[in-house]
């Protein structure tokens, strides 16, 4: 089998530097066996596997064996292949445990829905020879939004007035993209800082990874709204603030003015009312954030309401 792959690679991508020439796969069921140097042949095209995707969390790299970084031999383009991996697992959203499901079917459907929409990662799905749904994704050339914010090396006031207003406008566009999904009965399912990229070439914000789903009935978009609120909190504050790190950024005298209701409904040690630290944050923006606090009297149930309030904030920031 190695000779087939060797011939393919040498013919189609002669400059490839490979540690090994592996096997040719048309059936991706055993995705753990597929590794660097193997070629996946699906949808009439050949994908040379470069490596398994990894997810970094707390400094630990966790390999995602069902996600392969590849090169499409016919075009030389980099692609990401997501192979079928069904799992059901509990995730903790703040203090609540939620059962999440990984659904290739859902992600494939959303890829069809958002084709040509630059607010989302692009790709398509094909079935392999065993009927497994393989999603073939174009690589988003960009940086995670959290990294973009981290790299802005200024104090909070400068960040808030010079950088944040432009970011908020782009974030609103990203929220409109989520509204588009909801209007079509879909949710993103895993809205977090790692899943919104700023594209290098355009500066646009691009959502990635749509394969999480949940079996919620009364509030099907609650998890997405939770994610958006959390991202907004990070963007406004330039970071998250907890009792443990507050002292780094604020005088002790201000810390005493915080009350229970100022903290996050889901992450109870995360400060939401950051206007108490940075009083120049307009009350309109604080009001939006406080919908996600322990003191919230009402919650957002639709992105529409969240967006309407954010658009008001943009106007206020323009004036100020």
């Amino acid at each position, binding site marked *: 089998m190695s000779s087939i792959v060797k011939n393919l690679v040498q013919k189609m991508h002669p400059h490839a530097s490979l540690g090994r020439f592996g096997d040719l796969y048309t059936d991706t069921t055993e995705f753990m066996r597929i590794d660097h140097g193997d070629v996946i042949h699906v949808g009439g095209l050949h994908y040379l596997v470069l490596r398994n995707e990894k997810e970094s969390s707390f400094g630990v790299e966790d390999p995602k064996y069902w996600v392969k970084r590849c090169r499409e031999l016919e075009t030389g383009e980099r692609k990401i292949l997501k192979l079928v991996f069904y799992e059901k697992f509990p995730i903790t959203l703040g203090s609540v445990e939620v059962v999440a499901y990984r*659904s290739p079917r859902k992600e494939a459907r959303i890829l069809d829905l958002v084709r040509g929409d630059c607010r989302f990662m692009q790709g398509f799905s094909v079935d392999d020879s065993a009927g497994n749904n393989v999603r073939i994704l174009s690589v988003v050339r960009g940086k995670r939004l959290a990294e973009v914010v981290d790299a802005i090396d200024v104090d909070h006031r400068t960040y808030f007035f010079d950088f944040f207003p432009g970011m908020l406008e782009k974030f609103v566009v990203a929220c409109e993209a989520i509204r588009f999904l909801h209007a079509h009965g879909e949710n993103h399912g895993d809205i977090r800082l790692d899943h919104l990229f700023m594209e290098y070439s355009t500066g646009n914000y691009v959502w990635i990874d749509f394969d999480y789903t949940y*079996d919620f009935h009364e509030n*099907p978009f609650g998890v997405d709204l939770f994610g958006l609120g959390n991202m907004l909190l990070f963007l406004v504050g330039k970071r998250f603030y907890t009792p443990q790190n507050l002292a780094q950024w604020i005088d002790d005298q201000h810390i005493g003015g915080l009350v229970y209701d100022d903290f996050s409904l889901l992450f109870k040690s995360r400060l939401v009312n950051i206007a108490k630290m940075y009083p120049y944050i307009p009350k309109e923006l604080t009001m939006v954030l406080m919908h996600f606090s322990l003191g919230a009297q009402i919650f957002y149930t639709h992105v529409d309401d969240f967006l309407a309030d954010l658009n008001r904030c943009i106007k206020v920031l323009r004036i100020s």
Partner: protein
Amino acid sequence: MDRKKILIAVDSSENSKRAVSYVGDLLGDTPDILITLLYIERPPDRDTYADDTAWKAAAHAKEKNIQIFLDEARGMLEHKGVAEERIAEKYVVSCKSGIHEPSEDCSVGISIAEEILRVQKEGGFGTIVIGRRGVSRTEEFLYGSVSTSVMHKARVGTIWVVE
């Protein structure tokens, strides 16, 4: 709206059982009431299953549970004195049902509360009864709450929330 037309919205939970029991205790010996047990079908989400076979098996299992529940609920009401002919059942099929043919008035599945209110309006029910699972505010934010939604969205009639 007829106040004596009672709509009990149920699933197969203990909360629903309490709601049925409450109505039976309160109104069992009232001769001219009409009680409808309402179930809005909530099939398992197809996306959470690897294939149609597993999904339909789960849908059938859920269907069996609700049929058992409806039979027990009817039995409970009769036992508490409600005449058999004064108890009805309404089963609203989901538009995404894997086991029933969706009808024109099928449930789209975005909000169970809105489906309950639609049935209330169409049937002229003066009273809605619903069990409550007692979720925390955090859970309510994430999952939503049918009873809370019904209370917020109802414009006519009376809502009984049984805890």
